[in-house]
């Protein structure tokens, strides 16, 4: 099953490699990984999307907790949570495609953030499935370039991850 794991980690040099090393050394899968400092600059928050059986996920959280730099680990998928990912996508948008592309972006609540004579660059956020759906909805041959941040996640309601 797919899990979203949130990790609070000391903002030290090498912390990211400790975590990614652990995943590769133990053969765990990383679907995506995002990291940035939190409001407390001494800590970073990392979101790792991974897949595995319950046993594997249990080991992953234990192994993460074992790393000396890791302050806290939460498997967001254990309870209600919100997941978002940002995608930037450059599509061919010449005179005859422009309207269609714009309409499709609107349906998905995407925004056109850069325009050239024959391209649109669209910004789109949502969960992974929504971004996939948008890519499917476009004329495949019109897609010139995509970049995705990987998922970030946060618990719903009073579920708070902090020190």
């Amino acid at each position, binding site marked *: 099953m797919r899990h979203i794991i949130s990790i609070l980690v000391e903002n030290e040099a090498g912390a990211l490699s400790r975590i990614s090393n652990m995943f590769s050394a133990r053969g765990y899968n990383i679907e995506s990984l995002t990291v940035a400092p939190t409001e407390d600059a001494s800590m970073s928050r990392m979101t790792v999307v991974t897949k595995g059986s319950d046993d594997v996920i249990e080991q992953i959280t234990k192994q993460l907790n074992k790393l*000396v730099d*890791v302050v806290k680990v939460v498997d967001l998928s254990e309870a209600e949570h919100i997941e978002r990912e940002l995608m930037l996508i450059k599509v061919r948008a010449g005179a005859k495609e422009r309207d269609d592309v714009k309409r499709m972006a609107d349906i998905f609540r995407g925004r056109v953030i850069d325009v050239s004579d024959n391209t649109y660059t669209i910004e789109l956020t949502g969960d992974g499935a929504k971004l996939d759906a948008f890519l499917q909805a476009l004329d495949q041959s019109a897609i010139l370039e995509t970049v995705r941040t990987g998922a970030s996640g946060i618990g719903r309601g009073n579920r708070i991850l902090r020190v």
Partner: protein
Amino acid sequence: MDRIKTEELTGAEIVIRCLQAEGVEVVFGYPGGAVLWIYDELFKQDKVRHVLVRHEQGAAHAADGYSRSSHKVGVCLVTSGPGLTNAVTGIATAYMDSIPMVIISGQVPTHAIGEDAFQECDAVGITRPCVKHNFLVRDVKDLAVTMKKAFHIAATGRPGPVLVDIPKDVTVNRTEFHYPETIAMRSYNPVRKGHAGQIKKAVQLLLEAERPMIYTGGGVVLSNASAQLRDLVKRTGFPVTNTLMGLGAYPATDRQFLGMLGMHGTYEANMAMQHCDVLLAIGARFDDRVIGNPAHFAQNPRKIIHIDIDPSSISKRVKVDVPIVGNIPDVLGDFLGLLKDAKPKSIAGWWKQIHDWRSKDCLKYDRDSKVIKPQFVLEKLYEVTGGEAIVTSDVGQHQMWAAQFYKFEQPRRWINSGGLGTMGFGLPAAMGAVLANPGATVACVTGESSIQMCLQELSTCKQYRLPIKIINLNNKYMGMVRQWQQFFHGNRYSESYMDALPDFVKLAEGYGHSGLLVDKPADVEPALREAFRRKKDLVFLDFITDQAENVYPMVPGGKGITEMILSEDL
């Protein structure tokens, strides 16, 4: 040279002051460019003794052996680049067996890092997968607190090696020195006490057990919980087995001890492990060499209680019913408290079954052999040393025979590389053991292949007069490789025979020691007696042993622990 302020010290001085503050008595190391200032400060003081090895791998193993035989943190000091990479095997060895060590490595100056400078390597990157934690100290102001953290992390929780990488300019720069008494880290707080509810549940299971079994590993030795384990075994009357790493935690001559379990464990220990109905695992990790195939192990239903300081060791290979995370002496103390007024069920029937298994005498070997049987050497070693020696070993058949035939009565007397299986470990580890236990009898059980992997340390032994007795079981083969090739590769002994072996007696003499060649069974005991009589000397005993001998019982890789190959003599 005048100091501006009395407290302002150079990084190099701070390193030494930190070691002194930690009570470090011995550092194993090898100098080089990046650590010259640290060596300069070592030279100027006499509290911390430096032992000069001949290769950095030896430094790491010696620090490791020092720690295993004493429960102190082992310390080694190496230079940047090759100094550090040479030490990596020793660091990984310590990591796999959870040995508390601090490794100080020199690094090129901070401004040169990343420029492919002379003797530069990414020390924290290279060691990251084989240390508990590591640090690169970029600012001399962080040095003292980093050293404190290193010792704290190495010795607490599940112990392990910690590397502190110090660029050369940091050893020259000055700052005020203050060594913190204690350290708090929000990201690192190992537990001590076990969960009371879980402990109650576990004790209840033990009291209701009909076929109980206690299985303990290196964790009991590392946490100094041998006394509590002995109390628990006596209080319950249950059978107990130790892993390779756990030998000595429970006295091997006691009737309740079933011997070592696992790939080369005894028949009775492996059978009892498989057929018990309640298993109490303490500081052990159900690894592949211990329980073999986990699916086969799971065929027999049983309740498992697992005590370990490291949550990630629990339910990793084998699903556990009652996990207890905590420091073993604390947890066993709680167990004993609850067991005070309780009486376990009678398990006479279970013991009868175990005695039946035991009567198979699975370690039997041919005692009338005309050639020296390696098992015989180990038995005699046990007799001659009165079971009191600290025995280090290398890796292979000799290691297994030592584990099977030397009966360890006390913890921290059996020192071997169990997890990583590092050939070359034995001799430098023995050096560490001698330095941690002056006056103790120390034997290094090895083979002609293993000993050649860190042979250069014979020179260190000479310099520091380390009276190690080297028990070389020489069968001219990488014995364990040969055994696997015989069993599983159709007798094709691919590259496991070693031609052109040195004359070990002359070699020992060349290093200034003495050696003795022993090739007749009748000479084994007299040779051992002669060697151990010479308390001040290193003696290299080269025993020419049976080339065809195998270690039995043997559980083939991937098989269940009851699927043992037994000796043809049975």
